[in-house]
């Protein structure tokens, strides 16, 4: 369909899900900064985090997805509490910014998007879904064994450098846990 783009584009269910989720992330992120009320902004931030968690789930990283929801939704809820507590006349005076500032922000973000696309596109075999890892690769059990296990593979955090494998393999693990 797009022969020039280096995207492997099989248009399976996974791809459709990825693009829908990515679109929702973008929309909620834009709403988060565009909305004038700080509380609405926080709510859109939460939706953005939740959809990011769904993206992690599409990549079979369930624990990271749940940690994302747990940490960020809980954290933003507390942020909402303090927003309500610490701001007086919330929602009555919507702040406004001047035109030059909006223009600068617009130019900066366009430049950032340009750099990102320029950096990402040359990646070989760019795919939207991760399908290579085995089914139980990132399960909670493997995760826990890796973090707290008693064998040379365990205790990934404090003993990172003292595994009995060559040092150049020690740190770099492709594909997460």
């Amino acid at each position, binding site marked *: 369909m797009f022969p020039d783009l280096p995207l492997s584009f099989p248009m399976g269910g996974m791809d459709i899900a990825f693009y829908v989720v990515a679109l929702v992330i973008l929309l909620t992120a834009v709403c988060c900064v565009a909305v004038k009320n700080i509380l609405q902004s926080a*709510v859109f931030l939460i939706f953005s985090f939740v959809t990011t968690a769904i993206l992690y789930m599409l990549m079979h990283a369930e624990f990271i997805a749940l940690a994302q929801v747990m940490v960020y939704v809980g954290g933003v809820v507390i942020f*909402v509490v303090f927003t*309500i507590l610490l701001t007086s006349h919330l929602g009555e005076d919507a702040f406004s910014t001047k035109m030059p500032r909006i223009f600068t922000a617009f130019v900066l973000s366009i430049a950032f998007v340009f750099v990102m696309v320029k950096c990402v596109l040359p990646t070989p075999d760019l795919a939207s879904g991760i399908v290579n890892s085995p089914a139980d690769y990132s399960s909670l059990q493997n995760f826990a064994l890796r973090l707290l296990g008693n064998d040379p593979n365990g205790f990934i955090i404090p003993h990172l450098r003292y595994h009995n494998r060559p040092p150049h393999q020690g740190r770099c693990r492709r594909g997460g846990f």
Partner: protein
Amino acid sequence: MFVPSVTHPIGDFIRDLVPRVAEYLPASIQSDTLNSVIAFLINAVICIIAVCIVNIGSAPILIYMERKVCAHVQCRLGPMRLGWHGTLQTIADVIKMLFKEVYAPSGADKLMFYLAPLIVLIAPFIVCALIPFDKNLVVADVSMGIPLIIAVNGFGVLGILLGGWSSNNKYSLLGALRSGAQMISYEISFAMILLFVVMISGSTNLMSITMGQEGTIFDWWIFKIPVLGFIAFILFFISSTAEMNRAPFDIAEAEQELTGGYHTEYNGTPFAMFYLAEYIALITNSALATTCFLGGFFPPCIGIAAVDNVLNMVPGVVWFFAKIYFMVWCYMMVRWTFVRPRVDQLMDFEWKFLLPVNLVLLVAGAAFIAIGG
């Protein structure tokens, strides 16, 4: 082609059925991909309908039950006129509620005002999808059930806070902030009790937590760990009562002080959704207590073969719902017999008593597993 599958006998039945029906279609549009996608969609719709029936169908029953239990505790009769013993009363109430006009108070943040009831409903529906009602009756048999439950519980607080704030009413705001503080605090002990269950059962999957309790009544987690199980059950009961904002921990609503708290300004369908969320939370928390402590869908066998055979003839769903309604009855009796603590007493109780006890319980459970199990 990525097609997720629903793995229970109903799913298999649909997957068998769809290709046979598809043979009657014109040959040009027949394909295996189409069949599997359609089978998946039908299964998904069945799952959604099942969750909705369990949730929305149980709400009127619970409202009726609450009215009757409350009335009998207070030596009254409760609703008696509409239908047999007032059974049609709740249906009439639901219809009345749905046909009311929906409007927001002036000065309310309209978007947040109508979004809040929807957010409140997220958590109970997701949790309900994870509960194993029988050996094959579970919508989402995910490996990380308990972390998912802990994660989605945060949405309840968010919905209540938004509802209270966006109503533009000081009583709503006070109620919402109180309930936010309360639910954030009690979430910790709620999560810790669930972690205790995970620790003793060795799994975060609700189905395998249930399967670990197979056998007699003494194999249920409440009795299997000698004293700790019972303490954990009591703590779970307390913290889930607070998590649901039910009396005696209903300072969020506190009818006498706050005229209803966060849903003061709501009416019609949005109010019905808050109400529904409260009762679905009652069902899901009872189901969680049943799954984690009371043996899930297993019958209360006592080790005598003759009795156990009779008990085993009853299907697991029946046992599960019997246990759920027993738990609901317990929650209701607590609601109508205890007095409401003050806000500061509530916070003291969580941070100075419940949380330390939970921590000690976790350590004691770990010691029990390390030494005895």
